[in-house]
């Protein structure tokens, strides 16, 4: 492994109508982007459960992408809004787990944005590469216990300070 550049493995959940079609267009247009992404098709970005994201990380993904139609363009009216709300929640959750923010991304890509899609993949790969492989913090019980203790330690004086003020 030494010397060879780290190649992150990214799992992408793409909605059937916009982003999957956008990824198809990137192909039809012969745009080259890193082969690090494994695309899983869902009908709507609103289908992507937080559990899919956690599962992907647990299975060894170094990054997870959710991509759907632009707000207002959702094939199912507003599934992408739900995806966006969940993504905000996921970002906070993952941060608490100690997952670097570069490893998770929600991005809109329409059916004609092949170039944008290719760009998103490139950006993600470049952002994740310096981080190295994902460590699966929440998969190990001892890690979880340690994090919990740390979190409690962090929270206590702060909470005390606030009530005192």
């Amino acid at each position: 492994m030494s010397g060879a550049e780290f190649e992150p493995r990214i799992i992408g959940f793409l909605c059937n109508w916009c982003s999957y079609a956008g990824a198809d267009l990137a192909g039809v247009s012969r745009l080259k982007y890193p082969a690090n992404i494994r695309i899983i098709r869902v009908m709507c970005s609103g289908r992507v459960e937080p559990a899919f994201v956690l599962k992907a990380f647990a299975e060894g993904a170094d990054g997870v992408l959710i991509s759907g139609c632009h707000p207002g363009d959702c094939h199912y009216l507003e599934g992408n809004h739900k995806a966006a709300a969940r993504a905000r929640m996921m970002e906070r959750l993952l941060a608490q787990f100690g997952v670097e923010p570069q490893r998770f991304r929600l991005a809109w890509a329409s059916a004609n944005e092949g170039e944008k899609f290719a760009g998103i993949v490139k950006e993600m790969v470049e952002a994740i590469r310096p981080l190295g492989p994902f460590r699966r913090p929440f998969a190990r019980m001892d890690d979880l216990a340690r994090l919990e203790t740390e979190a409690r330690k962090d929270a206590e004086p702060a909470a005390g300070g606030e009530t005192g003020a």
Partner: protein
Amino acid sequence: MPEIRVGVYICHCGSNIADKVKVAEVCDFAATLPGVAVARDYQYMCADPGQELIRRDIQERGVNRVVVASCSPRMHEPTFRKVLESVGLNGYYFEMANIREHVSWVTEDPVAATRKAKALVAGAVGRVELHEPLEERYTVMNKTTLVVGGGIAGIEAALKIAASGNSVWLVEKEPSIGGNMAKLDKTFPTLDCSACILTPKMVSVAQSENIKLLTYAEVVKVDGCVGNFQVTIKKKARSVDLAKCTGCGICTSKCVVKVPSEFDGGLAMRKAIYTPFPQAVPNKPAIDREHCRQFVVGKCGVCQKLCPAGAVDYDQVDEDVTETFGAIIVATGYQQMDPSVGPQWGYGRHENVLTALQFERLVNASGPTGGKVKMKNGETPKAIAILHCVGSRDVNYHESCSRFCCMYGLKLAHLAKEKMGGEVYNFYIDLRCFGKGYEEFYNRVLDEGVHFIRGKGAEVITDRDGRLAVRVEDTLLGRWREVPVDMAVLSAAAEPRADAERVAQVLGIQRSRDGFFLEAHPKLEPLKTATDGVFIAGCCQGPKDIPDSVAQGAGAAAEALSLVTAGKVKISPVIAGVNEERCSGCKVCVPLCPYTAIAYDEEKKICRVNEAVCKGCGTCVASCPSGALSVKHFTNQQIFRQIEEVAAV
């Protein structure tokens, strides 16, 4: 349950896949995956012999799950499902791995491409083992089609559908149908009078028993899906009762308010109660409430007093009409770019700089000057410039070519020459005379003595006497020139209508980068959109000349009729369902459903999905805290397995 035997088929797609992905290696890898009974690679899986391979393995080797690794499922998933069904296997025991669009075409390195292809194949094999047989559902097809937009494309579509004996509604935003074509004087290259060929079709629309025409109306909401679109149309208050009005025109002649006419591009005035042009259909007026004195100052009432039929009704209000349609054809057209966005062209700054559509009105016998080419001061110009590509083929405005301007530039040059003599200059980048008889027309205009200067008109300036001049880099002479003229005509770009974004959102249409509506496939599905049952025709998809718009209108009618006449339409079995044992009745899912397909059962204290309304997006499933909801073909187990497999390679 019988043993699962997966057949995996890796397609070369000629050299499209095989040049980058080591197909044999992927095939060998697939053979090692659990559950795989047969793994093969073949030149073209979608071709008959490729399909036959699958059929034979199902029949002779007991294959009962199929994975094809080839192109995008958006292309050939239905093809392969049919193959399975043709030998009695459920079509949903199938999964595709997209190793062309998502692998071979986007990857430089063959090793990385091969590995990625293996990962996607592993994901598909893992997933297909968990597939369940699904039955296609059918819904009754509503027989009425909705056409949105009453320009030539929409008119043609409506007439064709009506001629087949089926019913159609035509909705037009303006008080009359006719669109941009109604404004044109002559049409290239044959020089037919535009109104003479258009108005008979407009009249046919009004006379057809199968067409319900709604003018001054807009589509504001679309619910449902193919076969059963519930459409809300807002009929704007016309202030004239169409049933009573006889179209006598007394109201218009007596109205005291004058407003620049949109139809004449502001070159003439119209009244506040008006029909946009003499051949309007319906030939009955509407009141422009923004300018009418009765509405602006609250008193006038002249038209109401004088109307012999008692048709003027100031109290009319906007009215929503809701109707169910089987299919929808969108033909909302284009608009000409406002050239004042580029001050270099002088539009709005100098007198006698006109847009091409304004010049059309000027040379039109029923236009503001009775067809005489006149400047603002009433004199006949001695020299006219026609500037091509104003805002087209220009990354600062529109990168694309507007397609029909070269030809109407030639046509206007011919008409100007014919009507006023004098000198006519065309400033062009290239002349794109692509259609039947177009090159011949160009030669004819050349012979008539029209000047052609190869160079984009860079600037329209005025000298001290107020005379115009066009600055141009003549690329044939290799130097800058200033060509003095009396009038400049701007072939301004054809662009998406200002409300294209709103229309696209209401109808669920995607747009391409240039803002025009996006077709389902650029070559083979030019009239379909990503939404089943919604078709596009004419310039709303991109600039087109009249013959192409007419052809698309007729084509879209054929698309709609092929659905309508089938009587029923297939809808996806991919829908959500509730496991009643698990549902806790928390109702989290109920407000999440954009189609209100989920209802709470008070008696059993659980939620239920209305299968007829559900479209299978799965948003509810992702939110269910008790795991009671699932969506067919995209179950958690299936996706989890796919994640496991693609992450493992």
